[in-house]
């Protein structure tokens, strides 16, 4: 027997081989070697060079490729774009998704759109943490409203925390910037061995470069000799947290570790000197040559870092800290990417499929592109075949009336509320609870507290939020209010899911469930006997009362074993 999740992942492995060819054909400028062939490099979680790339912005280039393919259809008139529109609800008629309610973000008009099928490709919900690497506009509203209309939410607590981000600098922080994972190919991650050194660095009395080689703790290389700095993201992130919690952090806030290129600079410098036939090069010459190589590879990232932090990363080791990056959880979908509401499909990061509890580098876009290019054209057609005689969907039906009224009432509540605090205030508070208690490490007590705190924030939000302006205008505070209202419900479900899963797996690390001895001491301890399932939650009218459905994970070909990066 093969279960749906396994079949879906098998399919992804099969079709994904075509993605690079597809993108090349679309004009995505992947890196080429001197022979003109596609170049590869290494990435977190693997020991071979297997990733196709476009300098430090592969994701962006794949996105632009998809955008150009979309605009081609727009030009032909096959697709009509509604930019600056936000979907606020799904309309379900006789058990099938039959349209959406949307708000025109410029005029405020609430629109009804009828449809034979609805596809949500609305991205991840990492912004429930307030601070994440996601764009400011990323949110859960579409998926959450679908959930409230009957779509199950799969594994909501599975969040990916990316190890190489620029640390938080202050309370004004609005988002976190990712430093490309490719940096871990050449950068070495360390903190001081002696806690006094770490303290001196935090107080500004010492610099990283003052710490002698022997006094540095390259903790990933120490703990994971086989993978070193290239362990998967969750492992690297937790290891950084472990060191910083133990008091070895290297910036003012104590939440940063070094990502150091000095060894790479020296290594490349020596190679360059050989290539250039420079005999007995001086140390300065080696560094000069090495910097040029590093700059060629990562120059734009180094510039970006310097811009944000105000420190030159060639002279001083970079400081990094983990940040929320991707959500593996999302709407539950079947093999056809259909949710539990017939006619409602979900693609890309918004669904829960394929990545389990832990996504590996470079695979998000692979999944998103496979879903959109290679899977949905077939599965949605299959669904529509039965609806061929349905005719246009009547948007004057009572279901549309009701859904529209609900949205208008909510908007009016926000605008008429005589509150005192801006939306961000509540969002920031929610984010802090999520990060502290449902972030890189979780425990039962913290999660229970988090649930209580989130309920309090939610109650206060509806009572005390202030949303200025009118509906009939470009009103960014109003947009945010609706999104934060949904995050405030989702956050509770995430904590419930994390609390329910009494094991550690991938991005979900429960402090009570770690290996206590043996070679894997301190690592995640799964409980396959009891938790080898997808948790699919059903909305029952209240965020705290979701119903759990279990979809078993069955493995025929491979045996479940413990991950080891030692």
């Amino acid at each position: 027997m093969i279960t749906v999740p396994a079949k879906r992942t098998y399919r992804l492995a099969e079709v994904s081989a075509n993605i690079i060819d597809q993108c090349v054909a679309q004009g995505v400028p992947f890196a080429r070697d001197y022979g003109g062939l596609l170049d590869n490099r290494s990435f977190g979680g693997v020991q071979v060079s297997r990733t196709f790339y476009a300098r430090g912005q592969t994701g962006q280039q794949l996105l632009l490729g998809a955008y150009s393919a979309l605009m081609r259809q727009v030009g032909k008139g096959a697709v009509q774009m509604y930019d600056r529109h936000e979907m606020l609800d799904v309309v379900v008629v006789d058990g099938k998704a039959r349209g959406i309610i949307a708000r025109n973000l410029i005029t405020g008009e609430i629109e009804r759109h009828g449809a034979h099928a609805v596809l949500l490709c609305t991205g991840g919900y990492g912004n429930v943490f307030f601070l994440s690497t996601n764009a400011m506009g990323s949110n859960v509203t579409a998926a959450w409203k679908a959930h409230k209309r009957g779509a199950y939410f799969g594994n909501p607590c599975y969040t990916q925390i990316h190890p190489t981000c620029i640390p938080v600098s202050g309370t004004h922080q609005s988002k976190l910037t990712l430093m490309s994972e490719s940096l871990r190919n050449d950068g070495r991650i360390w903190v001081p061995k002696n806690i006094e050194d770490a303290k001196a660095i935090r107080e500004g009395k010492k610099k990283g470069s003052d710490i002698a080689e022997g006094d540095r703790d390259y903790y990933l290389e120490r703990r994971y000799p086989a993978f070193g700095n290239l362990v998967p993201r969750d492992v690297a992130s937790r290891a950084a947290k472990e060191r910083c919690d133990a008091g070895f952090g290297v910036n003012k806030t104590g939440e940063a570790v070094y990502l150091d290129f000095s060894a790479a600079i020296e290594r490349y410098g020596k190679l360059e000197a050989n290539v250039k036939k420079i005999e007995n090069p001086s140390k300065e010459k080696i560094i000069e040559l090495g910097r040029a190589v590093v700059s060629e590879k990562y120059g734009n990232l180094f510039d970006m870092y310097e811009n944000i932090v105000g420190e030159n990363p060639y002279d001083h080791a970079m400081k990094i800290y983990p940040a929320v990056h991707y959500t593996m959880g999302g709407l539950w979908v079947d093999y056809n990417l259909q949710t539990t509401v017939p006619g409602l499909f979900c693609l890309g990061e918004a669904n829960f499929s394929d990545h389990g509890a832990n996504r590996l580098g470079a695979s998000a876009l692979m999944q998103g592109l496979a879903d959109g290019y290679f899977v949905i054209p077939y599965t949605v057609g299959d669904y529509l075949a039965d609806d061929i005689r349905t005719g246009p969907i009547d948007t004057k039906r009572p279901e549309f009336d009701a859904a529209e009224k609900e949205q208008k009432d909510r908007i009016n509540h926000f605008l008429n509320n005589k509150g005192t605090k801006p939306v961000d205030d509540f969002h920031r508070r929610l984010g802090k609870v999520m990060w502290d208690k449902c972030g890189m490490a979780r425990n039962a007590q913290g999660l229970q507290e988090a649930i209580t705190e989130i309920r309090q924030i939610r109650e206060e939000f509806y009572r005390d939020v202030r949303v200025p302006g009118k509906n009939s205008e470009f009103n960014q505070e109003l947009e945010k209010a609706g999104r934060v209202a949904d995050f405030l419900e989702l956050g509770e479900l995430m904590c419930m899911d994390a609390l329910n899963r009494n094991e550690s797996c991938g991005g979900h690390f429960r402090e009570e469930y770690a290996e206590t001895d043996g070679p894997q001491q301190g690592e995640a301890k799964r409980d396959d006997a009891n938790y080898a399932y997808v948790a699919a939650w059903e909305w029952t009218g209240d965020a705290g009362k979701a119903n759990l459905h279990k979809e078993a994970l069955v493995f025929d070909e491979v045996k479940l074993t413990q991950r080891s990066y030692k």
Partner: protein
Amino acid sequence: MGNMKLNLKIWRQAGPNDKGQMKDYPVSNVSEDMSFLEMLDVLNDDIVRKGDDPIAFDHDCREGICGSCSLFINGEAHGPGKGITTCQLHMRRFKDGDTIHVEPWRAQAFPVIKDLATNRSAFDRIQAAGGFVSINTSGNLVDGNAVPIPKDDADKAFDAATCIGCGACVATCPNGSAMLFTAAKVSQLSLLPQGKPERKRRALAMVEQMDKEGFGNCSNTGACEIECPKNISLEHIARLNREYLAATVTKE
């Protein structure tokens, strides 16, 4: 919080038909670690608490990727500093006591939506006119390695592909021309073997759409290249001109 005090002069405009005007906003407690947009967040937070209307501005990724942030700061698109977008601009580039003028992109083809937010969908329409390779996303294609691409061409195409469609080039150009943007898109595809078969049609269609949208003519001032956050080179405009000329000459 930091302790820089600034005097902001910000463009306020209720909607596309409103006349609009500059208004003064003193801000204090600005830290040099803040990004320019975070400084505006802090100001907006204050405005909302006072019950006033916060300043509208576009932004999304806040890391120089999406091209939506678009502020004209002290007379420069994306403000001071080379090779950065507004969201990548940090307050350490300013001094305590500075007066800072903040305006939207001003171009006929980019009407103001509200305050500092402009409608730049004209760029989408230029892209839709020809900024693509006409293949379906079916996956039934030849191997990506079947046609080797000289590294130099791939690198040049990549340089052009880094354009994020922000519109700083248009806002900077005294004529409001969209040549740098259009040239970047045309160049990327015409440098790659996959884009070559359609190059004539593409150059003609994209330039035609650009003119239709009300963008001005390029008079080679070179201002766009200086303000482009992605350092898109004027070389691409030269390439577009060649593509366009070749296409017009050989048009049936």
